């Protein structure tokens, strides 16, 4: 077991043990104080529904309905907890695995699958949800997020104390911390006091590579190098995720500049449906982490304090099932629009290369309907 490296539990803020006992954290307790049982139950509920959706998407991929799926399995607490800490005035830059955060931002989960069915690259209106599109080039969105935060500051949406104050949360993985762009984002955010929370989901793997291939020290330490305050927390503890993120957002919204958070969690599934995790990790490890399942943990806590009834559980599972059904129906109902739409939105204004190819393609297609296909 790693005792001081990036896979150690060094300095983790934790509010809930893995068996569901509450523990006190003096520094962050105030930020969880408003979490009543109803809210916690709502979080648990969203985590449960999210997982159901995730499994459905995986099975759709297996059946050939999707080209790929990127499960968020095991990271539900990191995502839902932090998502609950956001408000409308905040803006999120996800990587590509933050389906849980998408849920908290009001994105209808099945819509995400348009991307993975190969229909389009973006699948929701970022402005409508305060939730940017997924970015697949690792780390590059960290700079967009920083620029967006700089612009919020410029727009007077920081440090006024009003409800309009906002901040950006930028999610990325442990692997992403090695990219130049992420480090440049820390530079730009720091010198501009940008209102941004860099949220590292350290799920211990970048595909097959353990976090020890990216760093010799815990990733939260990265912030210090740039003068950015940082906190490491148990990413499988939805309370800690909520409280620490709330704290970080308050910092950022107040105008003191960026904060870096590391949610130490575990990718319970494979990297994607194309991946085979058995090639690089042990059953024992998976079992160890299965016992630290983020949903089971808060479920145990809620049950322990008598705030989660069998009916509520049944209801949530039924809802997950219904969502699964709706997802499956939706996915199968999507048929691709005409090919000619590939020429749309390359530019906002007409561009002769695109327009002439569009015209050529229309003639080409007509030539088939006119006189039958060539081959």
């Amino acid at each position, binding site marked *: 077991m790693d005792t001081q490296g990036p896979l150690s539990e060094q300095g983790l803020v934790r509010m809930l043990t893995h068996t569901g006992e509450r523990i006190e954290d003096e520094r962050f307790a105030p930020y969880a104080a408003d979490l009543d049982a109803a809210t916690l139950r709502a979080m648990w509920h969203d985590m449960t529904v999210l997982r159901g959706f995730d499994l459905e998407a995986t099975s759709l991929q297996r059946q050939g309905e999707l080209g790929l799926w990127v499960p968020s399995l095991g990271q539900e607490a990191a995502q839902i907890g932090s998502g609950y800490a956001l408000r409308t005035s905040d803006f999120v830059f996800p990587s590509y695995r933050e389906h849980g955060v998408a849920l908290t931002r009001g994105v209808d989960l099945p819509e995400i699958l348009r991307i993975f069915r190969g229909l*389009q*690259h*973006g699948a929701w*209106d*970022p*402005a409508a949800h305060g939730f*940017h*599109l997924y*970015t697949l*080039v690792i780390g*590059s969105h*960290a*700079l*967009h*997020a*920083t*620029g*967006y*935060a*700089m*612009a*919020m500051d*410029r*727009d007077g949406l920081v440090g006024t104390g009003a409800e309009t104050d906002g901040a950006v949360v930028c999610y990325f993985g442990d692997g992403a911390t090695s990219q*130049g*762009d992420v480090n*440049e*984002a820390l*530079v*730009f955010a720091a*010198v501009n006091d940008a209102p941004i929370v860099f949220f590292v989901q350290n799920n211990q793997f970048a595909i097959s590579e353990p976090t020890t291939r990216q760093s010799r020290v815990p990733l939260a330490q990265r912030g210090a190098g740039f003068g950015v305050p940082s906190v490491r927390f148990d990413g499988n503890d939805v309370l800690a995720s909520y409280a620490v993120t709330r704290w970080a957002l308050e910092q950022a919204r107040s105008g003191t500049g960026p904060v870096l958070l590391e949610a130490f969690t575990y990718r319970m599934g494979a990297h994607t449906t194309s991946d085979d995790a058995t090639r690089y990790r042990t059953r024992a490890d998976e079992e160890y982490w299965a016992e630290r399942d983020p949903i089971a943990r808060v479920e145990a806590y809620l049950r322990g304090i008598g705030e989660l009834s069998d009916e509520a559980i049944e209801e949530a599972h039924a809802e997950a099932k219904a969502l699964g059904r709706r997802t499956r129906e939706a996915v199968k109902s999507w048929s691709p629009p005409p090919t000619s739409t590939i020429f*749309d*939105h*390359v*530019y*906002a*204004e*007409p*561009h*002769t*290369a*695109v327009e002439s190819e569009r015209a050529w393609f229309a003639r080409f297609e007509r030539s088939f309907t006119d006189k039958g296909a060539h081959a």
Partner: protein
Amino acid sequence: MTAMTMAGAINRGMRAAMERDPKVLLMGEDIGQLGGVFRVTDGLWKDFGPDRVMDTPLAESGIVGTAIGMAMRGYRPVIEIQFDGFIFPAFDQITTQLAKMHYRSRGLINLPVVIRVPFAGHIGAVEHHSESPEALFAHTPGLRIVSPATPQDAYDMIQQAIASPDPYLFFEPKARYWDKAEVDEARVATQLSGEHGASAATAELSRGRVAREGKDVTLVAYGPTVRLAMQVADVAASEGRSIEVVDLRSISPLDSATVVRSAKRTGRVVIVHEAPTAFGTGAELAARVMEQAFFHLHAPVLRVGGFSTPYPGSKFEHDYLPNLDRVLDAVDRVMTH
């Protein structure tokens, strides 16, 4: 009409854009108090302050990446890349992000970012300060690429690029920064204040111009080589040859229509650019002229560009780059058919 150098014209054009639209802001290395290493932003920091003329950290990917984020909130960042050879650290942000965000968002997000790049050679500089990378960007759909050759075009085009909703690479022929000419400031101002100003501007930016009429050979150039092409036309005229010079102005879209029209009349085309000939703008243009004017051509389209070597020590740049002799040689060759 006011006399301006090209550097001055770009400076005034940016000033006009900043006055017209408070969302326009400048980003780059040393563009503030120093006014940029070529002084193209001279005086703007003083008049618009550090929030609109931002000295950024020394990281080109960071500059383009944060500009994208600011553009998402309605800003119109105009970036200065200090020298052509330093745009490559930003290549990923330009290629996979700036170029594709409008498409990725199915039109929901516009990124009106202008990246100004002082480019090309002839200033006696050390390595990496004389590159011509325009073709590398032209191969990426989603970007627009232009290069002015005169102070008037510099003044108009920078404002049109800023006004357009699409991302631009704006290649400034740095060896021409100190060329002076009279500039009419009114026309572009009128255009941009019109109802469809941005559309009109974008459309106009997409078109090349016939810089000199002629009937024997069509000589195509852009940016730094336009002046050379005009000199070639002069020398050729003294030898009894009539050369039509086309200033492309735009690389993406590439206004091949104007060239093809000319080629159909002259039957002979020579293309001149500083970038290495191989896989350059000339290749695309030659291929298109052939596709569209094949049966009008008397000779193959010829290209005169930099050689297939890294940019050599500056003592060699006159020979490395297209020069009067090499272009005249190509003109001779197309004329032998």
